[in-house]
């Protein structure tokens, strides 16, 4: 890579990191491109050399986040396979990005359509792992047979409700740290077969 290309890559990364940080703190709707350029330490004009519109930048931030989540989930699952372990890995990934993810959930319907599609893509990667684990546990008689979509939606509905209303459940802290274990225990109890 030429020196110029390396520099270009570094600036692009700086912009993405700055946007990620500001979106995490203030949400997607209250941050404009001037704020992001300032946070990244570049001129406002330079930002548009990398992203032609604000929507492009928003999509790129969500896309980078999605790629990292997919990679991280995969790594965390290397040595884990039970449904509980998958849910723990899922929560661990969210805890590392909790502010950003909660803001994304809250603002998603005001963002460009592509952002919503990207969120569904991220959920698709999670649903894949939950589906495989749940299938094994159903076959082994550990949990009740449940339709895969309802199993996933029950989990994600519960979790997203807590994340979207963080202030109500934890004030300024982390939902995952405060309630994560309880949510998993509760979910597993719902699925447990009565002996």
């Amino acid at each position: 890579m030429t020196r110029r290309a390396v520099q270009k890559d570094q600036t692009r990364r700086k912009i993405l990191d700055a946007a990620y940080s500001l979106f995490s703190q203030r949400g997607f709707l209250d941050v404009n491109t001037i704020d992001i350029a300032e946070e990244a330490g570049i001129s406002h004009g330079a930002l548009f050399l990398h992203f032609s519109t604000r929507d492009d930048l928003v999509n790129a931030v969500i896309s980078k986040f999605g790629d990292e989540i997919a990679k991280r989930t995969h790594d965390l699952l290397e040595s884990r396979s039970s449904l509980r372990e998958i849910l723990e890995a899922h929560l661990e990934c969210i805890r590392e990005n909790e502010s950003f993810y909660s803001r994304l959930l809250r603002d998603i319907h005001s963002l460009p359509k592509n952002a919503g599609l990207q969120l569904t893509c991220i959920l698709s990667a999670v649903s894949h792992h939950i589906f495989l684990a749940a299938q094994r546990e159903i076959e082994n008689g550990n949990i009740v047979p449940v339709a895969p979509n309802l199993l996933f939606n029950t989990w994600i509905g519960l979790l997203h409700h807590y994340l979207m209303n963080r202030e109500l459940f934890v004030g300024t802290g982390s939902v995952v740290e405060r309630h994560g274990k309880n949510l998993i225990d509760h979910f597993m109890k719902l699925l447990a077969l009565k002996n």
Partner: protein
Amino acid sequence: MATRCIACGMPMEKTEEFALDDRSKNYCRFCARPDGKMQNFAEKLKSLTAFIVRTQGLTSEAAQETAREMMSKLPAWSGK
């Protein structure tokens, strides 16, 4: 260092994650046909859409739109 499947984006590290357990393949076992060849665009779109409907309960239209979005970013399908 994990490589990513060119057709679905799944990180591949373990040998059994590669098509036909062959580490020289750049696509994963989920994107391979029974004979080991990579699925084509229409097959992948169909299987991914069906998977999203099954695991998330979306309408087939919404699932297909999501599948297209996922595939648009992957080397095997860019420009389709």
